[in-house]
């Protein structure tokens, strides 16, 4: 499986990244992408800024481990993870996951698995600023339940 991990400290262009991701494919029949965007509202009201922190080195290794697990579970031709760090504004892309496989189920499930990992297991810390003040975000109960679906 061809894989690429990128921790981006500046905005990235999702469609440009997808053109690049697709250019390397030889005989994929299915390409799934997930794009996460900063939402302009949370439960407490308007969100004006989001700040993302990571642990350089350890975060990348952990995502590499998740990609290895995906490769062992599904027949993937390629997988991509791009994750922003730093300060983000509403509507900006935070995360892009792409997977490619012969048949669609592998690509869907692997993208779903990788997103569950990024959402509540990968080493990122997310701080929201807005009407509700400034607060460090924790995954929702749903997010933990989603991630647990893949546990052995």
């Amino acid at each position, binding site marked *: 499986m061809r894989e690429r991990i990128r921790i981006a400290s500046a905005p990235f262009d999702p469609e440009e990244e997808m053109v690049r991701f697709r250019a390397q494919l030889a005989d994929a029949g299915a390409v799934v992408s997930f794009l996460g965007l900063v939402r302009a509202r949370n439960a407490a009201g308007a969100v004006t800024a989001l700040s993302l922190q990571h*642990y350089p080195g350890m975060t990348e290794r952990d995502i590499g481990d998740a990609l290895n697990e995906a490769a062992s579970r599904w027949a993937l031709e390629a997988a991509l993870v791009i*994750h922003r760090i730093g300060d983000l504004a509403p509507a900006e892309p935070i995360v892009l996951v792409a997977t490619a496989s012969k048949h669609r189920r592998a690509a869907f499930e692997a993208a779903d698995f990788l997103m569950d990992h990024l959402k509540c297991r990968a080493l990122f*810390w997310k701080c929201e600023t807005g009407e509700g003040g400034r607060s*460090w975000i924790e995954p929702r109960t749903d997010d933990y339940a989603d991630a647990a679906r893949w546990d052995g």
Partner: protein
Amino acid sequence: MATLLFFGRLGDLAGGVERALGLSTALSVADVIGIIEQSDRLLASALAEERVRYAINGTIVDGEALIEDEDELAFLPPVSGG
């Protein structure tokens, strides 16, 4: 010097992500938290919470693991990405 790293809300409490700590001998993570408690009980109490994980030089460890000079000890509160 050893390096202490405080991520997420722990960085707010510590007044910064990174802090240097001089070590004359190897100390356990629990010992380090004990040292911090002498000057900052709020931070030490946050570091000792069950949901905070520890990593030495990028590997997850428990509270009894030892850090030596030049090591990096990171305190990892609950993560959230994506």
